[in-house]
């Protein structure tokens, strides 16, 4: 039987590692079929997990969910099923890491917004986008001087919440041209 790599969850770091389970030995057709069934079961489980992560993280963008095709539609062999299983596992692991990093970043951004509102003068010109706090839309919080130049001279600052674009996604041309968003706090400090 070709090596059947079973993915074992690591409680320590919550990442999946690939561990060889069985040495290469001759396999019967029935054993090969059993191996295919097991691999398909693993693929189904990880597809479920990937789908749940996708639903949980939406509308955050910039996370790679792609796994790739294997030249179907056809019955895949053991090696091909293993590759798909491994690719899914890698995608799940990468997504979890990305989501965890974003969660930390978003929490930090939310705390920053609270600090900005409490003391706008200490966060002059700082801007936080809604994307930075994990919310949809194009709102942003911006610490600006009250009444423009007068506020700047008198050190009167406030946090202004922009409601975002008049259209749901902005103009059609800008939506087509804009690159996919990246993880960016969007701070502007002068």
């Amino acid at each position: 039987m070709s090596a059947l790599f079973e993915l074992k969850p690591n409680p320590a770091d919550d990442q999946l590692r690939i561990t060889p389970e069985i040495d290469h030995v001759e396999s019967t057709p029935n054993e090969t079929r059993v191996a295919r069934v097991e691999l398909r079961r693993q693929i189904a489980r990880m597809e479920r997990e990937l789908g749940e992560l996708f639903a949980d993280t939406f509308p955050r963008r910039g996370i790679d969910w792609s796994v790739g095709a294997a030249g179907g539609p056809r019955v895949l062999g053991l090696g091909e099923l293993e590759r798909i299983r491994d690719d899914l596992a890698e995608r799940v692991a990468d997504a979890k890491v990305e989501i965890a990093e974003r969660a930390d970043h978003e929490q930090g951004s939310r705390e920053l917004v609270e600090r900005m509102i409490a003391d706008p003068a200490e966060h002059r010109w700082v801007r936080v986008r809604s994307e930075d706090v994990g919310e949809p839309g194009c709102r942003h919080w911006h610490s600006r001087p009250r009444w423009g130049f007068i506020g700047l001279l008198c050190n009167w600052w406030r946090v202004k919440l922009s409601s975002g674009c008049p259209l749901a996604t902005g103009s059609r041309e800008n939506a087509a041209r804009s690159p996919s968003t990246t993880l960016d706090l969007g701070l502007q400090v002068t």
Partner: protein
Amino acid sequence: MTDAGDELSRRGRVDPGLAEEFPGLRINSARVGRGSGRSTRGLKQRLRLLSDRMAGAQAIAIRNRPIPWAYRVFFRHIGLDPDEQPTPIEEAVRERLLRGGFRSNNLLDDALTVAIVESGVAVRAFDADRITGDLAIRPSLAGEELEGRPGLLPEGTLVIADDARSLALLFGAIGSGRGVTPSTQAIELVALGVPGVPEISVEEALWLAVDSMN
């Protein structure tokens, strides 16, 4: 309610090797004794109601519902990427989001949309008069080709076939001249069930499509 020329659902054949690999893979079909044409007012109203029920949140979560998930898993199992080549239900939902609703095209497309969205089951249509014998899901043979597709099919490609030839790739392109055209006089509605999809859902999908066309 069915009209004269309509037949009850028939179960097609699945290659024995495929059936062993994928228990639950099935193909059911029903014949409708008419072509397509303009959609009806009732069907358009039904599409509008479906549009209201399928908002963004439901669309995002659809891949985790049992039947859509079963199709995604099966796509992975046969080497397809459901993100590059969406499953029928996800394709319909994607269109709904992009176009702001389920838009009416014609009687057949609207009936298929209703059947797919309501049941989650993959349903497609062929020109019934251009089918020889019974339908089946099987691997392609060496030297076999799909009409309209350049070159030969790689041996072992999963196809929907009749007794004479391949009609379409499984969840893929339909052979040239085998699909429904304006000159089609009778339509064969085909529901494809995969492992994890209850047979009753496959039957329901066909019934929805037939009922919508009548």
